[in-house]
């Protein structure tokens, strides 16, 4: 029935209104348990006392409100899906790439979750810097060529003789070569470390884990996977994942992805290693030991890092054991280069991450969970024999002995191969 003069309720409503009964807002306040104005409280109370229907409505609406509030209590335990923020990040990146970002909104780069090693624009803009860079590059290439030729004439290190580093088309990282070499580097002055490495079971596990390769076939940007790994790492305050672009015929291009926290904590060290890594990797050093904690501790930049990596690799060969010792208090992610993709296989694009994790615990499972994001296919590959990969310097093999001995523990490098087809 329409609400109007023909509706008998209409007159009643207007009359009631004119008579000053409780307003809707006052009833709402009653339902919600709020106090009324003193001059109205008595009027409303009287109205409720005289009107059973009205009183019943107030009571029942109050009950309804309590029912709704109980839903709120239940919702307090409601948790958003664990991957919600990752999905948000992916969508932000997608929309940024598609140009769907509203004007003024931050770009995907501004919203990144990790720090990229950046060069200062002011320095880059300098023509002197460019000239110096070109000159340094030429000199470095020449020096690298000479060193490479010398390396080719020398005997193959025992470590390389064990295998060609290829298993089923997938290269595998031996257990923490860098750490092993670093262990040897300090073995002469640290008995404590021997004690750690005497954990045969740990070493065995490390060897087993070392042959575990996580392959990721994906259409996602590598950055997404890196971000996933970085979050995993960031939980433990560690710093670096090394990314190797292993496209066929292209020299690997390492990139360091430090985390903000660790970056802040170790800014000075990271700066040094950042400088060193490109050169170290380009040389693909796998050569004679240079005893060296002193060398490793001293110096900076490319040259020092080259020597450090040589030391580490040689020491690993000498030990003949993929012994592992790295700080375990912090959770380092170390990067280690793999040979170029020409030896790796057929994919149109392949990148390799080496993630160092403690050799005990469920870290590999954690990595897999971290990588279990939409669009990523995970494949676990077990190597069928001992394999080795020439390893240039990595961050933690440079730094690990700077950590307290008590924090040393077995670690293992897990290669994560990202293939894009």
């Amino acid at each position, binding site marked *: 029935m329409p609400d109007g003069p023909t509706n008998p309720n209409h007159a009643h409503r207007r009359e009631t209104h004119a008579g000053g009964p409780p307003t809707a807002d006052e009833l*709402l306040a009653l339902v*919600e348990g709020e106090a009324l104005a003193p001059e109205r409280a008595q009027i409303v109370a009287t109205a409720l006392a005289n009107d059973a229907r009205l009183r019943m409505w107030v009571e*029942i609406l109050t009950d309804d409100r309590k029912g709704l509030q109980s839903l709120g209590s239940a919702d307090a335990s409601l948790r958003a899906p664990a991957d919600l923020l990752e999905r948000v990040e992916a969508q932000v990146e997608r929309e940024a790439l598609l140009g769907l970002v509203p004007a003024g909104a*931050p770009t995907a780069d501004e919203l990144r979750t990790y720090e990229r090693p950046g060069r200062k624009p002011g320095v880059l803009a300098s023509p002197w810097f460019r000239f110096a860079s070109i000159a340094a590059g030429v000199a470095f290439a020449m020096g690298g060529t000479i060193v490479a030729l010398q390396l080719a004439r020398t005997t193959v290190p025992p470590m390389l003789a064990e295998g060609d580093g290829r298993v089923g088309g997938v290269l595998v990282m031996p257990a923490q070569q860098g750490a092993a070499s670093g262990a040897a580097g300090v073995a002469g002055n640290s008995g404590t470390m021997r004690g750690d490495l005497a954990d045969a079971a740990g070493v065995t596990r490390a060897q087993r884990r070392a042959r575990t390769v996580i392959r990721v076939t994906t259409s996602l940007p590598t950055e997404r996977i890196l971000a996933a790994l970085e979050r995993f790492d960031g939980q433990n305050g560690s710093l670096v994942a090394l990314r190797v672009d292993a496209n066929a015929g292209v020299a690997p291009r390492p990139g360091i992805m430090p985390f903000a926290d660790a970056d802040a904590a170790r800014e000075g060290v990271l700066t040094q290693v950042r400088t060193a890594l490109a050169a170290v990797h380009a040389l693909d050093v796998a050569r004679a030991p240079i005893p060296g904690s002193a060398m490793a501790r001293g110096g900076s930049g490319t040259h020092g890092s080259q020597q450090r990596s040589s030391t580490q690799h040689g020491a690993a060969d000498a030990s003949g054991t993929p012994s592992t010792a790295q700080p375990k208090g912090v959770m380092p992610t170390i990067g280690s280069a793999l040979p170029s993709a020409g030896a790796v296989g057929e994919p149109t694009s392949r990148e390799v991450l080496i993630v160092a994790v403690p050799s005990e615990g469920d870290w590999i499972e954690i990595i897999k969970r971290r990588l279990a994001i939409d669009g990523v296919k995970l494949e676990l590959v077990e190597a069928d024999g001992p394999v080795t990969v020439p390893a240039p310097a990595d961050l933690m093999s440079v730094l690990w002995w700077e950590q307290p001995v008590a924090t040393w523990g077995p670690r293992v490098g897990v290669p994560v191969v990202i293939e894009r087809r």
Partner: protein
Amino acid sequence: MSLTGENHGGGGPDDLIDQRLVARTRAGEAGAWQELLARHQDRLYGVCVRMVGPTPRGRELATDLAQDAFVKIIQGLHTFDGQAKVSTWMIRVTMNVVLSWQRGQRLRQHASLDAPVAGHPGGAGGGPGSGSETRSHAELLPDREPTADRRVQSLELRATVAEALSQVEPEQRALLVLRDVRGLDYAQIAHVVGVPVGTIKSRLFRARINLREAFENLTKPSTTKPSTTKPDLTKPPANKP
């Protein structure tokens, strides 16, 4: 009173933290926006779930809606003017995403089903809402008595409230969720919905009545099919003694 952790005091410590995170995000600090969203994602997701229903399908949908809302929050952080608390603003964005989606769903339905019932107080716009302070309850309250034996007392019946809530118009459901489920005050709700406080009260009162109607429809004896149409409160009182 806050039931679910909403901070009602203006500029409380939680809001200060949020404001700092907003500033850090605007400054381009990596990870700041994640920290901001991580602080609120459960509550915002809860709003989405309650708006679309806590079924498995509803949770999936709520995840998608929350994702869209979070993206809009990130992309709209530069528009946040600080007039409201960050958390309130985030709820506003989230609620707008949910309501937009629900309006879109309604548009896909048959026009006859979508058309508001003439004179029905549960229309999307809420009718003449402002200035309700002087309105008599008789203009809003049904002339019948509520069904006394269907009070929300037992746990089971409270579960039915959730079902009844899903049958209320989305705009009214939003008010009930914000007020009772999330515990926002009127000023915050007014900011979220974008209407004056007086209008909020008027619409909220209607929403409560419509929730009651939906609840009683659901708890009617099974011989009667629960009404899915909007109750016409302009009818003569059915149960009036």
